[in-house]
């Protein structure tokens, strides 16, 4: 178990290192260079040279990468001239809200999708399975922002019970809950369609296994076979799947935050992309990717805890 975790951890660090190389290369492939991008087209040559010197841009690229990497590890991700704030302080403000949004909607999606998937797997090819299948397929094909818009039409316009924007998030606990409902619902529904379809095929696969036949043969009820045998075995693969889909959940958060004006890193990123605020863009990409890598690491640890084979075989 320890050896496995160490290896998995080293792998995560390697992935983050490559990501930071990619981000660094992108930072240096900006049109007109990093300094021009920050100062704008009207800056004088003197200003450009001066900023290049203070930012150390005249040194060789590998040296610059080393300096940048050490700074990034210290939490210094640069300065946003547009927002007049350090990127790190912006991220400290915005990231927790996104993590809250992503966390709640993922947990709720799992809580809803797993029973749906199990029910569908158990009732395979019956009418109710077909109905659920068709609905998850349509949900699956629907862009997140369209889903959000439908919710706005239904729950904020036709039946005005919930606010259609989340700009006020962080004001007070009472309003925060109301504000969070639609973004979470939107983000959650897209994931439900995916997780439940995955869970369904996983359950169908498991129902064909010998252990299920044995469990039935020794006189277990359907409910007991499903809940105590099939559920756990189907969950192990679903667990890893959830870890692997984290990048997509964050992509979804970008859309949802832009739609509802929810002040998270997605909205920060979106605004930065319109302002061409490169330090923020690259800082967000780095931190969000780190969140994804940590998330999939956690999913793998969860997997190892669910599946004893992983725990014992390799260590």
């Amino acid at each position, binding site marked *: 178990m320890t050896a496995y975790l160490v290896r*998995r951890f080293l792998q995560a660090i390697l992935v983050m290192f490559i990501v930071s190389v990619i981000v660094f290369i992108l930072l240096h492939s900006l049109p007109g260079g990093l300094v021009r991008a920050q100062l704008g087209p009207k800056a004088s040559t003197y200003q450009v040279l001066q900023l290049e010197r203070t930012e150390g841009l005249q040194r060789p690229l590998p040296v610059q990468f080393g300096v940048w990497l050490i700074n990034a590890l210290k939490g210094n991700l640069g300065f946003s001239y547009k927002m007049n704030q350090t990127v790190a302080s912006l991220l400290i403000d915005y990231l927790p809200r996104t993590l809250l949004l992503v966390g709640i909607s993922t947990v709720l999606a799992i809580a809803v999708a797993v029973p749906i998937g199990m029910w569908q797997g158990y009732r395979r090819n019956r009418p109710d399975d077909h109905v659920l299948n068709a609905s998850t397929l349509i949900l699956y094909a629907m862009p997140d922002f369209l889903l959000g818009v439908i919710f706005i039409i239904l729950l904020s316009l036709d039946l005005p019970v919930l606010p259609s924007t989340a700009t006020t998030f962080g004001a007070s606990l009472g309003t925060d809950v109301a504000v969070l409902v639609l973004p979470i619902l939107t983000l959650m529904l897209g994931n439900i369609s995916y997780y439940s379809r995955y869970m369904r095929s996983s359950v169908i696969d498991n129902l064909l296994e010998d252990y299920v036949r044995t469990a039935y043969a020794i006189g277990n009820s359907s409910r007991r076979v499903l809940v105590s045998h099939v559920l756990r075995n189907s969950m192990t693969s679903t667990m890893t799947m959830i870890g692997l889909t984290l990048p997509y959940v964050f992509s979804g958060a970008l859309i949802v935050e832009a739609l509802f004006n929810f002040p998270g890193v997605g909205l920060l990123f979106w605004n930065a992309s319109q302002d061409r605020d490169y330090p923020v863009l690259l800082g967000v990409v780095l931190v969000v990717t780190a969140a994804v890598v940590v998330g999939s690491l956690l999913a793998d640890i969860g997997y190892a805890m669910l599946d004893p084979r992983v725990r014992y075989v390799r260590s």
Partner: protein
Amino acid sequence: MSAVDRGVEGESLRSPAETAARAAVLAEDLPGRRAPRLPAKRLRFVTGAAAQNRLAVAGLVVTVGLVLFCFVGPLLYRTNQTATNLILENRAPSAAHLLGTSPEGRDEIGQLMVGGQTTLEVAFSVAILSTAFGVVYGAIAGYIGGVFDAILMRIVDAVLAIPFLFFVVLLASIMTPNLFVIVLAITAASWLSTARLVRGEVLSLRTRDYVAASRVFGARHRYVIFRHLVPNVLGVVAVNATLKVADTIYIYAAMAFLGLSLPPPATSWGDLLTTGINNLFAGYWWQLWPPAIAIVLSVLAVNVVGDGLHDLVERRLERR
């Protein structure tokens, strides 16, 4: 043991959980927006083959219908899609304009045709480009193997960890959006799953006897890769490419929603949908639902075609 299973075992650097995840993905019957698609072992149990085929044919008919609507439609249904006509702005559906007009006073049906052209052009270009690049990258990595393969695949892992939309938006905002940049940005993030898929397949195919025989006869590596290995993975790759068309329609719509689109009068289904969303509170429903239906319908139809193709390839692989 199937070819794919061996491909999974051949990966030395993967964690058991990841290996298990891939094995799990093998048995999966989902459209591949969120995971690399590999042949499923028990797909026939999962979906009745007959129903699947009828559905696939329906999907194909809808897809072809949409292509005809967008590319042949404008020849039959002539509207002015470049001029701005403020007298006609935001008109509700009427006999003259069956689906109403846009904020620029352009006929909405005509807008759907022109927008669909852009969307479908981007979708097919991305599918072709990213598949071509992914096949070459994956085939080389899988064929050479060893440290070289490990390095190439770690790069794939790293880029895959960057949330897709963040990566695409970042690329598109570093460059000025035009058709080429948009296609390039989506391609840069879409070739990865193909590369993984092809590499896994090649890893198992390269140990086959006919490859060894070919080498004994003096074939060069390049010949082996392009004459033996690539043709053998084409079936699986075709499925993957089909699903990429659907994914790209979806992603391009999301990009348009985030404001990364072509300058007007060029438009796309995503741009039209975004206009509809912006005019939501004005109640111009005819600007919202037609592009929404077009996007959902096309994504659904292409996914269903991909599923049918998947079935077909699967049956061929089982006989192999």
